[in-house]
């Protein structure tokens, strides 16, 4: 009993140690502008800032209006391009229809990359996040360093890193397994996802009130039990909205892989445009790409908001 309480005390002391060091080192904690007179609004803003800092960016706030505007831009661009079209040229929509299978295949690629990068990054991030709240000082230190390292690196640089340094094939037990470009790009995007997920985990664990640890201790739970049975279950709710927002950000970032030559939608759109060689098609085609992204990201952003509102009572 006494040993358990002792362990727990060390555990929560460790948590505070992590917190204070992390704050000193990288200002992850809500650097609140805690002026009591300003409390409600200022705290909310500081909290949002801290959340955005952990989650890889401020929340996407897509509304149906955005979709309407995008569609309008698309329609107007089509009309303008149509008006500019010379005699004998096929209509803009017919051209788009011709390229549609190619573009959609590219978009599926974007989605596949985002899904794989998210799942890989999340798994690695959960481990890294758990390591950040470890009781072993060395583990905490290393985990914190890795997290900060990958959070400070620009996404594009990490993408380049994986594209150029991962081998194009590996030999396992005499078998040669090729690693295609897009897989490497997936790893490149998974790295920043990992770092942000790790931060989301740490932020969620720290947001659980100390009273929860104390009441678990008074019921003679040990640290591991407290963590897995009491703290982490409460964390999942808090982690879900930022995690989904991170996914939306990641999906939008998959267009970066076009810079390193992955045949995703931006690359394919560029190819289609150069094959058609009609400058007027530029705007309608790219507007169409944005519409696709909107159609995919809007429900996610929407759902994120709903979950956030639903779980807001915890605060």
């Amino acid at each position: 009993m006494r040993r358990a309480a002792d362990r727990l005390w060390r555990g929560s002391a460790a948590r505070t140690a992590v917190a204070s060091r992390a704050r000193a080192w990288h200002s992850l904690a809500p650097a609140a502008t805690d002026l009591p007179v300003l409390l409600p609004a200022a705290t909310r803003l500081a909290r949002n800032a801290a959340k955005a800092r952990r989650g890889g960016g401020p929340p996407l706030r897509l509304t149906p209006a955005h979709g309407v505007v995008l569609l309008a831009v698309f329609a107007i661009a089509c009309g303008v391009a149509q008006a500019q079209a010379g005699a004998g040229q096929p209509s803009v929509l017919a051209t788009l229809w011709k390229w549609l299978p190619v573009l959609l295949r590219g978009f599926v690629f974007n989605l596949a990359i985002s899904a794989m990068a998210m799942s890989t990054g999340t798994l690695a991030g959960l481990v890294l996040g758990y390591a950040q709240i470890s009781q072993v000082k060395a583990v905490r230190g290393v985990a914190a360093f890795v997290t900060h390292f990958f959070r400070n690196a620009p996404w594009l640089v990490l993408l380049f890193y994986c594209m150029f340094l991962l081998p194009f094939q590996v030999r396992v037990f005499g078998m040669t397994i090729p690693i295609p470009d897009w897989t490497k790009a997936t790893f490149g995007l998974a790295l920043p996802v990992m770092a942000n997920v790790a931060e989301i985990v740490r932020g969620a664990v720290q947001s659980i009130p100390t009273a929860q640890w104390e009441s678990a201790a008074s019921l003679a739970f040990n640290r591991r039990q407290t963590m897995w049975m009491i703290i982490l279950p409460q964390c999942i709710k808090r982690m879900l909205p930022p995690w989904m927002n991170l996914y939306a950000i990641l999906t939008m970032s998959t267009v970066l892989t076009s810079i390193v030559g992955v045949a995703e939608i931006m690359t394919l759109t560029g190819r289609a445009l150069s094959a058609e060689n009609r400058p007027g098609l530029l705007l309608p085609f790219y507007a169409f790409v944005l519409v696709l992204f909107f159609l995919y990201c809007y429900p996610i952003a929407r759902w994120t908001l709903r979950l956030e509102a639903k779980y807001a009572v915890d605060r």
Partner: protein
Amino acid sequence: MNAEATTTPRPLVSVRDVHKSFGHVEVLKGVSMDVQKGEAICIIGPSGSGKSTLLRCINGLVPINSGTIRVRDFEVQNLKTDHEKIALRKEVSMVFQQYNLFPHKTALDNVMMAPVHVLRENRDEVRTRALALLKKVGLAAKADAYPGELSGGQQQRVAIARALAMRPEVMLFDEITAALDPETIKDVLATVRELANEGMTCMLVTHEMRFAREVASTVYFTDGGVIVESGPPAQLFDRPAKERTRAFLSQVL
């Protein structure tokens, strides 16, 4: 009436038939009162009876719909520009329920700010005066503390010093103890009592009945946007004439 007008001097603050509405809600339904120089008056009454609104109107923070408010030579309802309102506020200072100190300035700076920036007085002179005022409210030692480092009662006393630094003719106190812990109320009230005894013209909205009885020369009981009854504290508290006054007092005393 006429005889009285010749014997009593012209009141410093004169409120006549003031009406004030917020949207469809009329919070002041024809309020009149006179305050002589050096007098301390208290306004009591249930919440939502328009007490605070009246003080805000006198300070020109909210415009009135009809009636007149005169402070010294200022016809408050006629002040339109910021410039004119600022001139009024040099004469009338207000202390708020939530102290409203500027959180990014020290206690001393809070006191010094208005005289330096609004009255454009010499900074060194203002500092001397501000320190004296902080000493007067018993907070000389806290001059360099930020509002967040002070208790509620201490913050409120700084707020009083800040208002006094403008050397106003009238001080308005808007439920200044309502947000305070019981043990800190004492110090704040002592400060106000001292002020009143020195002859500062004070208008207080308060829920502290014992304090009102002790300090005020006249007590006004307001309810539903009108002054139900007024008079010297001994009369109003011990022999209220109106049933509503009696009902209110029996609840709070």
